[in-house]
């Protein structure tokens, strides 16, 4: 290959990625603009809340409990060396609220709900169900994409809040019930150090951003799948990989913006 071929190759892939980004952006805008309407949209939204939210609840609650417990156990072992094991409460609560709650929930969500979304929509596309909707004069963005998008955006923050609350409870189990920290000081020090705006509002903001990104990637990968079994499995993998990376990178950015100064 000559030099010009290489340069043309770079140009081709640049054009392709810009085109991809553009069509993904259009799809996102289409989904945002089509807020589910009361009569027809809400039943669809409820069904998706069930599939995306309710069915992810068990994995989120169990993971939250264990992560809170592990965090408390490891934290206790370190803090006890400084004689400051009373600070276990804020350590667990702040780690969960600021980072682990939104991030781990988003990663689990990408694996549990995101991959399922991609596979479902990919299958709909490859069996021509999406085409068939279009031919019935029904907008697939409104019927299929928008309810799933909104269900994801609503579910993930709720799941992250549940994860965090259960995680703090797990920390309480290990710290107070097992390691014998005084329950009063555990809660009072925890309450003194957690701030409503700084910690809880930022936790919700983070998980909202992750919700938009993960759901968007999952839907886009499904909607643009190459309609064959290999394409669907590739798209599912891509959803998990890309949304995990996006969550971690965005987490760094958001943390720098929220807690950096």
């Amino acid at each position, binding site marked *: 290959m000559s030099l010009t071929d290489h340069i043309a190759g770079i140009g081709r892939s640049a054009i392709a990625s810009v085109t991809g980004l553009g069509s993904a952006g259009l799809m996102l805008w289409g989904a945002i603009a089509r807020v589910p309407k009361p009569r027809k949209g809400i*039943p669809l939204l*409820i*069904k998706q*809340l*069930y599939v995306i*939210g*309710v069915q992810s*609840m068990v994995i989120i609650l169990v993971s939250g409990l264990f992560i809170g417990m592990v965090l408390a156990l490891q934290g206790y072992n370190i803090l006890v060396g*400084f004689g*400051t094991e009373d600070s276990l409460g804020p350590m667990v*609560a702040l780690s969960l*609220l600021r980072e682990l709650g939104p991030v781990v929930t988003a990663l689990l969500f990408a694996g549990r709900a995101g991959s399922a979304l991609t596979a479902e929509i990919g299958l709909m596309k490859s069996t021509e169900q999406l085409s068939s909707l279009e031919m019935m004069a029904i907008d697939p963005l409104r019927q299929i994409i928008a309810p799933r998008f909104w269900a994801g955006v*609503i*579910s993930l*923050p*709720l*799941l992250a*809040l*549940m994860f*965090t*609350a*259960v995680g*703090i409870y797990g920390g309480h189990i290990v710290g107070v019930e097992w390691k014998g920290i005084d329950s009063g000081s555990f*809660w009072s020090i*925890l*309450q*003194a*150090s*957690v*701030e*409503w705006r700084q*910690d*809880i509002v930022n*936790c*919700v903001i983070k998980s909202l951003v992750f919700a938009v990104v993960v759901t968007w990637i999952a839907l886009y990968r499904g909607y643009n799948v190459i309609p064959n079994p290999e394409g669907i499995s590739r798209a599912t993998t891509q959803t998990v990989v890309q949304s995990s990376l996006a969550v971690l990178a965005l987490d760094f950015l958001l943390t720098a913006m929220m807690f950096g100064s």
Partner: protein
Amino acid sequence: MLTRKIELLVGVFILSGLMAFLVLVFNVANIEVKPGQSHYTLYAKFTNIGGLKVRSPVKVGGVVVGRVTQISLDPTELVAVVELAMDKQYEQFPETSSLSILTSGLLGEQFLGLTPGFVMDDIGMLQEGDYIDDTHSALVLEDLIGQFLYSVKSKDN
């Protein structure tokens, strides 16, 4: 098309999410819902505030009676000015009270300790917007160690 079971579970899901939110807000962040007029403001000047932060507590004998709401630098005197929101139910502090920056434990958080002064006929109570004159700045560990080393050295000589 939707079964009752799905609707019920989605309802439970949303309610548990909101419950988790409320638990975090009220149990973990300990937000106190109080009407806006329940505080009065005091000011104090310090040459060094050490590690004092906005929202650090003001305590009298260990009881929290207020919080730091703002920390700024006086542009002419070049000393730190701390604004305190004091709880309305504790209004009985005489003007002779003193304020010191203390540390909980050896390495813990810093807070303001208010020591109520004596009460005499011609001395009023602290009012909205008053300055507390008698303040003790934070003890800086490095300064303390420096002083200690200096005194040890001078004894040796």
